[in-house]
């Protein structure tokens, strides 16, 4: 026990100040005052891997390390969509995950927000749309905030999550274009 306490004391506090919200990541202006009043700053997130390579998950895990200390900001990951305010969805949505993703969305109580994380979640990424992939998350459920990056860094993820929370978030035109993903099932000309 003494070793543990000594190590905790020697490590000290590593938490860094959070970045500012990135409003350019806001896709759809569903973020009305009323929703934000309901959610407050105590946000709960249910993460759903809908087909990612696991790269985004590694960075989402990193949000909980002492440097980013997500829980210190009043934001935490929960084990059930029924306890969640936000769905944080990664990956191109594989067809095999589409039904599970929709059910998770339906099980999340209103008001709810959806954040698509990573290039695949934003545009389909390198996997695109195919016989097995539906591409970007917005093709399957409505998306409020899109965080690009392959994978997005913990700082970018934090900026996107804070943008979802930011009352100052000003709506911008959707940046995502379905044609940004690639479709591979078309026979080559």
């Amino acid at each position, binding site marked *: 026990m003494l070793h543990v306490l000594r*190590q905790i004391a020697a490590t000290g506090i590593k938490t860094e100040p959070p970045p500012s919200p990135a409003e350019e990541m806001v896709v759809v202006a569903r973020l009305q005052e009323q929703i934000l009043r309901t959610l407050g700053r105590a946000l709960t997130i249910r993460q759903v891997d809908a087909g990612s*390579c696991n790269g985004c998950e590694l960075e989402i895990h*990193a949000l909980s390390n002492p440097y980013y200390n997500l829980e210190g900001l009043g934001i935490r990951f929960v084990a059930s969509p029924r306890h969640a305010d936000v769905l944080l969805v990664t*990956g191109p949505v594989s067809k095999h995950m589409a039904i599970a993703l929709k059910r998770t969305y339906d099980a999340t109580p209103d008001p709810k927000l959806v954040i698509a994380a990573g290039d695949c979640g934003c545009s389909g990424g390198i996997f695109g749309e195919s016989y097995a992939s539906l591409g970007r998350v917005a093709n399957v459920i409505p998306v409020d905030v899109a965080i690009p990056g392959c994978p997005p860094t913990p700082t970018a993820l934090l900026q996107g999550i804070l943008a979802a929370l930011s009352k100052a978030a000003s709506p911008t035109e959707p940046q995502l274009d379905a044609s940004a993903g690639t479709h591979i099932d078309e026979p080559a000309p």
Partner: protein
Amino acid sequence: MNVSPLGMATAPLACNVPAQRCPVSSGQLITACRLAWEQGGQLVALWASDERDRERGFCLRVLLKDSEGLTLLEHTLPDEGARYPDLSAIFPAANRMQRAAFDLVGVQCDADDQRPWAWQAAWPIDQFPLRRDFVASPKWEPGQEDYPFVRVSGDGVHEIAVGPVHAGIIEPGHFRFQVVGEKVLRLEERLGYVHKGIEKRFEALPIAEGYRLVGRVSGDSTVAYAWAYAQAVEAIAGLAAPPRAVWLRALCLERERVANHLGDLGYLGNDAGFAFGLAQFSRLKEDVLRVNSRAFGHRFMMDVVVPGGIARDPDSDAVAALRAQCASLAREIRVLRDIYDEHAGLQDRFRQCGQVTSELAAKLGLTGFAARASALADDLRCDFPAPPYAALAVRKVTQTSGDVAARVAVRFDETFESLRLIEALLEAMPKGEIAAPLPEFPAFAFALGTVEGWRGPVVIALESGPDGSIRRCHPHDPSWQNWPVLEHAVIGNIVPDFPLINKSFNLSYSGHDL
């Protein structure tokens, strides 16, 4: 493997470890596999390709490994009605690979278990995505299959269904437990949820650009995959990467190993109720990722290993940071290891939990660090040392008890060894170019690349098409072998120990589902 007693012809195979290929008849396929098993060989991978456009029907490929190297058995199936013999009685790991080969290519074996594996109703069951005449229809809606799980019946036996959306931040998969009270009688996995058509996607990419996709087969092993792919490309092109690139690749691979082991050591503490471990190890992992970013421009070193060499040479400041981190990490991890080792509650959870005996591991073909924790001492870096490992005398880490405690101990020891290797690599890093220009690629050339990733051996089988295109690329993750072993490791344990046992293996879903 010496196949001459079977009267089989062999040809050398382009690969970074000793390898040969042999065309086999259906009878020879089963005899060769049996002979390999008797001589201590293991199944590495099994996959199929559509060769009808070249008047060769379908080709089933079975890759075996023994102490002499790799042997690729190639069996031609003249048409889609032809069947090949079931290999799962010899190598149980073949079961799921055979089922996936049917789902994707439509070649069938004569096994009793004909349940789908890669297919989960996203496309019609009589369509096969990896056939060359496959055309997907936008009308195909995601469907739901009714998978026949094996059920256990009896007094007080009930079923727990978990997933595909898990309670934590984990990849999706389904676990079906048959339990009595808290005790697990049986676990059956249903994977394939993250099947996103990776192998088909390769066929639309030029060889020179495939490294971006291969680096995203399994994000936690991006360096291992990219290096294996680069080796296959270089074997096809008859090209050698410059020495400095090869040494830097090994440096990246060892840092990938360190980062993954550190992350899992933290979660293993956490899953046993010791949150301190997660806080400490996740801090150290973050330190590693930040130095990666400084040295290679990416926290996980994605797109750093490229065919021909490496994309980025760390500057002198970054080299100093890489070197300084070896000593500081080793010092910190030693303190944490003492704390883990002396923590009675933690050790109580780790020991005799999720045990895989050496005999079971050998029978099921367990591979990678998990196999080394069950006294199966295979490590490509030691068994077939190529530059730069040949010069470094990698210490092979093994344990004998095969439980969570053994897998934890292997991860600690491998982390220390990787830190030693990183220091040695920095010390003797050759100077010079970091990439060789890529020549034109010959069409219809076939090569293998293999790398001992942190989880185990990653294999890339690559065949070129005309004009620098990819005709077929099959990535193989060691998780194919280890997922079925996890089903055995949990038998007789209690349900709450499953997360701990699962994390001690930490298998890939994406790398397996493709």
